[in-house]
Each structure stands twice: as structure tokens, then as C-alpha cells.
């Protein structure tokens, strides 16, 4: 009964999506207020039905309804309830439902947070999102129905893939999809602007916070995926340039370019067509990522689905979305004005150059990801494109981008004077060079690549400091009041850039100084690596809810002091016949991670004897993820900038009015934040 309800809810959602995808767009084009007005309620209605469908599937999982094929395929009655819930998106069909669910969350967010926008714009934005929703709901109902029944009903389910039975499963896919699908809002705004012909600074202003939110989610989503792979796959890798990882990285790169381009469009009215094109690209790459992962064209960690019918559907959908939006772009973009002028040396030009580099980087990832598929399809041979390729082409592309990252924020809009820039950057440049020359020795070894890593990180940090210094110099008052008077979006930029520096340090350190050892260990044996002594104390058998495990114990000491007791495991899941999984044991730290994974017993008939054990020391590996978190904090700060919450008339009003409003009761003060100067007076 419940699965049928869910199925029915999906069909109703599709009908509402059809209404939403057609009538508001017609209404906006023909100037029919009645049709325009239905956009919001229809979108909210669609959300309700998709939520019902989602709830029905979750209900079937939680109640072990194995008559539903998808539940039987991805769950088991012995699975703990929280993994039964996350198993909702543990396979192909449920992932799509999550995709549509999140698309609907974004739609509702648009209906709620865009009250001040013209109704026709909202109608167009929601119309475009409705069209996207039609595609995905049709895809689900025609090729991948999560509510299909199974007959005869199996006594128990096949269980969730062991790799997915992990806390990472609760957060990584929803976060990643929030990012992916979030770019649909920027996309919809762009299409709406092209349709209306009103591509102005106001459009950029509306699109900007949505893009930043999506980017922030995507950053966190990718970070969680990287951290998850690090501990769940058992070999300590944090990024493998796997096609699935690339699928999320490409929209991130283009999304980063889009955020910067939007800044120029909003502030200076320039790059309009380029910005629109980036918004189309960012979402197209999100769709392409969904296609790559969901169609089964790849054989990799995440791609479990293999069904050509599905692949074909997504490919056609992809062609329609990208083709029609590019056609619309080609038709409308030439009419777009150029915007404010600027010189070759200016902040605009540097942001544009950085945009080009980011897009080339994304294109490179795309090339490397699709190349083996294309060669194979053309029968030109099978090749693998892996980390050595990406590392060797990516570093030369990103190094100039990071150099510009330091210069751009210091350059003036419109026209920057080179001598000025030189004076400002001289100091930062000197410091960076000195650090690049000396710090690698301190870390342990000087090689050109390590020096380059430190150079880039030091460059970002020092230019950030210079930037803050020059900015604060233009204000009066105490240091605190000057700091408090800077808008949050400015700090957002500083944080995001600083996060990149932290990230680069992490990558440089772990790439250059990680060490590992494969050892044979019998009880009492000690392996020494990087100053740490790992003593093997044997294995014990452990019974999990739906698995049996052999749990090893290693006592780690340094200079005679015990620093950790680690328990790596080998697990065999009862309901599945896959080979046993490896659960690495990790002792994290700011400057290093200790990482232990069990291999196999040397003599397979004697598990109490010696084992093959792999031990890694990963210096600064957590800085990689810390860098991503700092970038995401930057994104958050930018979103919560005061100007997005102020009604237009207040932001254009005088400071006095804002000040008076701020002294009003808390309810009124809530939506009109006090000015910075006032805040410092009454801390």
C-alpha cells in the first residue's frame, strides 16, 4: 500500500511539474498574470508530493518491506535502522529520488527567499526548474522506479553495499547533491534572464547568493567524499582522480569561476554573456556528472547501475538541456550590452583571466575523464587516465591561477596601475620566495615541487595580509572598529582564499612526506616507522549486527610513551558474498595521521598467526579537509553579508535610517542588521 502511495505521489508530482514547466513560462512571455501567479503554489505542491514519495520509500526501508525490489536489493533486516534510512539513496533509483527531492527543496527555497523579485522573473525561474524536474521524474517513472514490487517476496534483503554502511553515507550524498542541484538555480536564473532579455546587474545580484550557497554545499560535499574514501577504502588515498570524483570536481571548478564572474557582473555590469555561459556550463556539468555516475558508463567505486536504456535516456535529456540552453544563448546573448569598460590591467581583467584558467582546468578534467570512454567507443584501444596524468597537467594550469588569486583582490576595478601593484606586492613576493627557499628544508627535504607548494601557499597568505592591511588603512578608528566595519563578504573572500592556502600545504606535505610500510606481524612484533613504534597484539573475533569481524589491536608508542591503541578490522558481511572489507584504524592529528590497515593472514588457515599489515604515516593530511572547510566558511560569510538581507530601499537609504531601525525592538532589528559602526559602539 505504502509503495503504491509513493508511486502515485511521484506521478502527481510529475503532473504538477508539467504544469509548472509550461504555464508560468507561457504566462511570463504573454503577460498573463494569472498564469504567472501559479508558479509558487505549484512548485510548493510538487515539493509536497515528492516529499511524500521520499517518505514512502524511507518507510518501506525502515519497515523492511522486501516486496519492494529496490528495498530488497539494498537493505537487510539485520541492518541498523540508521543505515536502513540512508540506504534510501544507496542505489540508483533512490539516488534519483534524492536528486529530485533536493531539486524540490531548492525550488521551495526560491519561492520563499525571493519575495522581493519581480513575479515574472520568479515564474520563469520556477518554470525552468519545473522543466528539469519533468526530465528527472520521467526518468524515474520510465526506467528506474524505486517502488517496483517483487514477486515472490524474498525472506530477506541483499543488504546495503558494505562500503556504504558508514556515517559518511548520511552526509556525503545529500551535501554533494545540494551542491550539484543547487547550480540549477543559477542556471534557471540565467535562462530566465535570457528569456526576458533583462540581463543586468540586478540579475547578477539575485543569482549570486544562490550560486555561493550551492558552491558551499558542493565544497563540503566533495570534502566529505574525500574524507570518506580516505578511511573506508583502506589505502589512505584522499583523491584518486576517479571519474566519479571528477564528475563532482568539474562543476566545482566552473562554479568557482561563476562566483567570481558574477561578482564582476554585479559590481561593474561587465562579462554578462560570459557569466550566463558559465551558469549554463556549471549546471550542464552537474547533469553530465549525474549521467556519468548513473548510467553505468564508468566502472568505478560508485557506479553500480548498468542498463543502456537508462544511459540513453540521460544522454538524450542532457542533449536537450544543453542544446536548447546554448541555442537560446546564441540567439539572445549578442543583444547583451558590454557593461562598464575596464583596462587590460584591472581587477576585471584579472578575474576574467582566472576564469579562463579555471574553465580550462575543468575542460582538462573533462578531457581526461571522457577520453578513455571515447577511445573505447571508437575501438581505438583501451587506456587508463589516472593520477600521473592529472597531476602533470593540472599543476601547470593551477599555478598561474593561484598567482592571479593573490594579485586580483589587490588590483583596482577599471584600471589598476602597475607601479602601484608592484609596490603592494613586492613585500608579499619577497616573503613567499624566502619561505619557498627555506621552509622545505625545515619540513625535511627541498625539491622543486615542495618549494612550489610552499611558494603558492605563502603567496596566498601574504597577499591576503597585504590586502587586509591596505584595506584597513583607508578607514579611521581603532583596529577593532575598522575590522568590524568590513562587510562579511570581504571576509568571505579572505577566508576562501586562505582555505586554498591551507589546502595546498596539506597536499604538499602529504604528497611529499607520507611514508608507508608493509610488514608481516605476529603477536608481539613491532614495526617502527617515522619515529612511531607499532606493536601488534593479536586479533579477536567480533560480532557486528550484520557482519563478523576480525579486530586487530596495535599499540603505538613514541619515545616510550603510548600514543594510541588502534583497532583495524577485516569484516565479512553475512548477507553478501563480496570479499571481506577492510576497516582501517586511524589516529588523527593536526600534524600527522597514523593509519593502519589489515591485509590478509600470511597463512590463511591460521588467523592467530602473522598478518600482513600496512602502516601509513600521513603528515598534515587533515589540512586538506580543513582547507575545504575554511573555503566553505568563506562561502557562508559571503552569503550572510548584510546587503542580501536588507531591502533595497534601506541599503540605498542613509546610515541614519538604518541606525534608527537597528535601535527598534529585536523583531525589527532582525531583518535590518545594525550598521557596523553602531555595532561597535554597543558591543
Amino acid at each position, binding site marked *: 500500500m505504502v509503495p503504491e502511495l509513493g508511486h502515485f505521489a511521484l506521478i502527481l508530482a510529475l503532473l504538477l511539474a508539467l504544469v509548472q514547466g509550461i504555464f508560468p513560462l507561457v504566462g511570463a512571455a504573454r503577460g498573463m498574470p494569472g498564469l504567472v501567479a501559479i508558479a509558487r503554489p505549484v512548485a510548493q505542491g510538487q515539493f509536497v508530493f515528492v516529499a511524500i514519495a521520499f517518505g514512502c520509500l524511507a518507510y518501506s526501508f525502515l519497515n523492511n518491506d522486501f516486496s519492494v525490489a529496490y528495498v530488497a536489493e539494498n537493505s537487510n533486516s539485520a541492518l541498523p535502522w540508521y543505515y536502513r534510512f540512508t540506504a534510501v539513496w544507496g542505489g540508483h533509483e533512490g539516488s534519483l529520488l534524492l536528486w529530485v527531492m533536493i531539486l524540490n527543496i531548492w525550488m521551495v527555497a526560491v519561492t520563499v527567499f525571493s519575495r522581493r523579485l519581480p513575479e515574472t522573473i520568479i515564474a520563469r525561474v520556477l518554470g525552468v526548474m519545473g522543466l528539469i524536474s519533468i526530465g528527472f521524474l520521467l526518468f524515474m517513472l520510465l526506467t528506474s522506479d524505486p517502488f517496483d514490487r517483487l514477486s515472490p517476496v524474498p525472506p530477506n534483503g541483499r543488504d546495503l553495499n558494505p562500503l556504504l554502511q558508514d556515517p559518511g553515507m548520511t552526509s556525503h550524498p545529500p551535501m554533494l547533491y545540494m551542491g550539484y542541484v543547487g547550480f540549477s538555480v543559477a542556471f534557471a536564473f540565467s535562462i530566465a534572464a535570457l528569456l526576458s532579455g533583462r540581463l543586468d*546587474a540586478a540579475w547578477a545580484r539575485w543569482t549570486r547568493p544562490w550560486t555561493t550557497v550551492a558552491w558551499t554545499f558542493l565544497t563540503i560535499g566533495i570534502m566529505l567524499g574525500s574524507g570518506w574514501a580516505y578511511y573506508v577504502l*583502506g*589505502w589512505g588515498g584522499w583523491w*584518486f582522480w576517479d571519474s566519479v570524483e571528477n564528475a563532482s570536481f568539474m562543476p566545482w571548478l566552473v562554479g568557482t569561476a561563476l562566483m567570481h564572474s558574477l561578482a564582476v557582473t554585479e*559590481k*561593474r555590469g561587465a562579462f554578462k554573456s560570459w557569466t550566463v555561459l558559465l551558469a549554463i556550463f556549471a549546471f550542464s556539468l552537474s547533469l553530465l556528472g549525474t549521467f556519468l555516475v548513473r548510467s553505468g558508463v564508468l*566502472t*568505478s*567505486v560508485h557506479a553500480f547501475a548498468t542498463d543502456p536504456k537508462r544511459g540513453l535516456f540521460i544522454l538524450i535529456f542532457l542533449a536537450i538541456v544543453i542544446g536548447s540552453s546554448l541555442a537560446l544563448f546564441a540567439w539572445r546573448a549578442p543583444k547583451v*550590452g558590454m*557593461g*562598464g*569598460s575596464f583596462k*587590460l590591467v584591472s581587477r576585471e581583467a584579472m578575474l576574467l*583571466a582566472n576564469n*579562463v*584558467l579555471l574553465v*580550462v582546468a575543468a*575542460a*582538462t578534467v573533462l*578531457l581526461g575523464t571522457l*577520453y578513455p570512454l571515447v*577511445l573505447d567507443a571508437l575501438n581505438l*584501444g*583501451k*587506456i*587508463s*587516465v*589516472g593520477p*600521473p*596524468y592529472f597531476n602533470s*597537467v593540472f599543476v601547470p*594550469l593551477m599555478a598561474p591561477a593561484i598567482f592571479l588569486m593573490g594579485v586580483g*583582490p589587490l588590483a*583596482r576595478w*577599471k584600471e589598476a596601475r602597475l607601479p602601484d601593484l608592484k609596490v603592494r606586492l613586492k613585500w608579499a613576493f619577497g616573503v613567499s620566495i624566502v619561505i619557498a627557499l627555506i621552509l622545505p628544508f625545515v619540513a625535511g627535504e627541498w625539491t622543486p615541487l615542495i618549494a612550489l607548494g610552499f611558494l603558492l601557499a605563502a603567496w596566498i597568505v601574504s597577499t591576503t595580509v597585504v590586502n587586509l592591511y591596505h*584595506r584597513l588603512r*583607508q578607514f579611521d578608528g581603532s583596529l577593532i572598529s575598522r575590522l568590524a566595519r568590513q562587510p562579511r563578504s*570581504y571576509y*568571505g*573572500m579572505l577566508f576562501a582564499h586562505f582555505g586554498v592556502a591551507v589546502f595546498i600545504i596539506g597536499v604538499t606535505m602529504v604528497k611529499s612526506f607520507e611514508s*608507508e*610500510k*608493509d*610488514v*608481516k606481524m*605476529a603477536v*608481539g*612484533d*613491532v*614495526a617502527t616507522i617515522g619515529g612511531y*613504534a*607499532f*606493536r601488534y597484539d593479536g586479533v579477536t573475533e567480533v560480532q557486528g549486527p550484520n557482519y563478523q569481524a576480525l579486530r586487530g589491536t596495535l599499540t603505538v*608508542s613514541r619515545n*616510550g610513551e*603510548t600514543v594510541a591503541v588502534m583497532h583495524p578490522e577485516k569484516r565479512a558481511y553475512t548477507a553478501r558474498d563480496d570479499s571481506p572489507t*577492510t576497516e582501517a584504524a586511524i589516529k588523527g592529528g593536526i600534524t600527522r595521521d597514523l593509519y593502519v590497515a589489515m591485509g590478509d593472514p600470511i597463512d590463511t588457515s591460521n588467523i592467530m598467526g602473522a598478518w*600482513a599489515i*600496512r602502516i601509513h604515516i600521513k603528515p598534515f593530511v587533515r589540512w586538506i579537509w580543513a582547507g575545504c572547510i575554511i573555503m566553505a566558511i568563506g562561502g557562508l560569510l559571503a552569503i550572510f553579508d548584510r546587503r542580501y538581507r536588507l531591502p533595497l530601499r534601506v541599503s540605498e537609504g542613509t546610515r541614519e535610517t538604518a541606525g534608527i531601525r537597528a535601535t527598534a525592538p529585536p523583531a525589527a532589528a532582525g531583518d535590518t542588521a545594525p550598521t557596523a559602526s553602531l555595532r561597535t559602539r554597543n558591543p
Partner: protein
Amino acid sequence: MTSRWLIAAALFLSAASGIVSGKEAAPLADDPELEARTTQVASELRCLVCQNQTIADSQAGLAIDLKNQIREQLRQGATEAQIKQYMVQRYGDFVLYNPPVKTTTWLLWFGPFLLMVLGIAALIYTLLKRNRGARSVGGNETNTNSVSSRPES
């Protein structure tokens, strides 16, 4: 002299707390330097039965076999290039994570740099054209968002 005393003290302390006992674990390989070279070669080869893993990272049976073969060939004096060639003969280019540069992969290898050159060229062309265009219509075409002298984020 002092250092020897310190070591003795450390040994005593650790023995007393029972931390360092037992023998040093034998590495899976007896020659660490050979092992490092083996890992180096193995980290650029694909484990063919795994889901996108290198032979160095994988613990699968085939990967361990191949790692043993690499070690054996290195011990017999084979160069890294020879071993890779041997692997390619047996398993095809698919086994190499670093794809070889040949006619079918020119686009893969030179594409990114070609794109970068084209991108920068297009950028400079656009900026120059734009500047000329802007000047001929007399400066700012739209100046709705005039810029204050203060830098903004």
C-alpha cells in the same frame, strides 16, 4: 656518553612499562630499497580486477602477484621502462595510469595546453577589441554601478 645513558634510561623505562617488546616486524619484503622502487613502478599500474586502484594500493590477489613479478624483475636488473613494456604487452595500454604519448593520445596530452593558449589568446583579443570598442563610443557605455574609490570585495 650522556646519550648512551639516555638510551639506557629510555630502554629501562619502556621495558618497565612494557611498551617495546618483541622483535622488529619483518617487512613483507626483505630489501626496503627494492621495495620502494617496486612501489614506485606499481603505483603507476592499474589493478585490472579492482575498481580503479593502483597495483601498489590494492591488496587483491592479482595485484599482489603482479607486485611480486615487478619485484622479481627489478631484482634481475630490469629497468622500470622494461617492466612497464612487459606489462603493456600482457595487458595493453589499459594497465598504464600514465597513458603513453602516441597518435591516439595527442589530444589528451596536448589538449589542455592548447586550450590554455587558445583561452588566453581569446581573452587578450576580447579585451583589446572591447577596449577599442569602448573608446570609440566614448568611454563608459553603462555606468549604473559606479565604483567608489574604496576597494570592494
